[in-house]
């Protein structure tokens, strides 16, 4: 076949790809921040003694884990205005991603909560701490260390999921790649570089995560 690789056109537009990558990371970061707040609430709901609370939280998790993210993204951008909630492309995407990630994060946090031994709560009670104090100074810190790997892989997953923002023309990495593809016709080169950027970023994130884990591990 008569195709010779020529990356020049891609390098000329490399800045756009990098800006796109930055936006992808930013979207993922904001989404996981919001998702963590909601996910924590859901996790405490799931382990709570109230059947209503744990049922509602369980329902949320089941529903959002079984919905395609793209449906949520389109819903949030196209359908919410019909309900009177008009958000920018970026905000509506972050909202969809945060709601989606909360379902996964809730499971991560729930595992962490269940992993905190009951005896530690009792030890807290025994020195006169209130439930709130126990949650804040004992359960949360222990849980956060144990959920770190889960949080990290969720973040890497969300980073990849930001590619769906291209569907509503948010100029993140995939959108920029597609633009370069269409404008320059350097098809193979564009996608090699774009997926290369994703792969490299994912491995850097994974490596960083291992470092943080090692630092935060309960020292011995």
């Amino acid at each position, binding site marked *: 076949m008569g195709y010779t690789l020529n990356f020049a056109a891609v390098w000329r537009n490399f800045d756009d790809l990098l800006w796109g990558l930055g936006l992808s990371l930013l979207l993922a970061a904001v989404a996981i921040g919001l998702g963590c707040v909601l996910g924590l609430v859901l996790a405490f709901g799931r382990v709570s003694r109230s059947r209503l609370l744990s049922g509602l939280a369980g329902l949320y998790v089941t529903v959002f884990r079984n919905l395609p993210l793209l449906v949520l993204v389109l819903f949030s951008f196209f359908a919410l205005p019909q309900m009177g909630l008009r958000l920018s492309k970026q905000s509506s995407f972050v909202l969809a991603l945060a709601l989606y990630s909360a379902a996964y994060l809730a499971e991560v946090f729930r595992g962490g909560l269940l992993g905190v031994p009951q005896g530690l709560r009792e030890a807290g009670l025994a020195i006169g701490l209130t439930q709130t104090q126990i949650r804040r100074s004992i359960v949360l810190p222990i849980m956060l260390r144990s959920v770190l790997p889960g949080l990290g892989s969720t973040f890497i997953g969300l980073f990849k999921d930001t590619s769906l923002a291209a569907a509503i023309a948010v100029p993140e990495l995939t959108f920029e790649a597609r633009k370069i593809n269409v404008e320059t016709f350097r098809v193979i080169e564009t996608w090699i570089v774009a997926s290369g950027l994703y792969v490299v970023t994912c491995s850097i994130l994974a490596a960083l995560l291992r470092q943080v884990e090692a630092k935060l591990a309960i*020292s011995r």
Partner: protein
Amino acid sequence: MHGNLLEIHGLHKRYGSVEVLKGVDCNVAHGEVISIIGSSGSGKTTMLRCVNMLEEFEGGTIRIDGEEIGYATAGGERRRKPEKEIARQRALTGMAFQQFNLFPHMTALQNVTLGLRLVKKMSREESQALGETWLDRVGLLSRKDHYPSGLSGGQQQRVAIARAIAMSPRLMLFDEVTSALDPELVAEVLQVVRSLADDGMTMLLVTHEMRFAYEVSSRVIFMNQGRIGEEGNPKMMFASPKTERLAEFLKSSRFD
């Protein structure tokens, strides 16, 4: 001070359909050291946990210096006290657990100072000074910056005792504090408990260490099937048990 420090009256507790405490009455005077013995399932640990409201109970009252613990009865209706109030009452007693339950994400010193800062509202400096005093007292000042995972079982239990005692409770509860320890680590923990007893600390200890119970206690309570089977001076009780049950129990227990 006058009267009893702890008064337990008609204590009933059930788990589902199983009645674990079938009416326990027990008074503890200031400065008494009481060992609670009995086979597993006799209700001894449950009784201890009720005193610290780690277990709810359905009937009876527990009073510390006359103050009713956990529940209030008004107009014939028995209500659980608000969580804040119960937390305050729990701080009247200190508890050491079989499994130590040290907070794994905190150093030895942080374990001891947590309650001082959050419950006693001490300043950082004040709580650290007091925490160090107590760690010194259990012989672990040099280990104050170690995390629990870097301490032996015996050391962890000593920190746990320091954590409880630093809150200056009126009553210390020890729940089988040596049962999870390797045999060679038991002595160092018992040494700490003994020194607290010598200081005049009022304490209730659930224990399997018969010799220790014999040596330290001013009184021994033998629990049997959710009731107090027999109680009295350890020397008398161990030498001539009045009930068949206690005689059997003593025969089956290691007395070394």
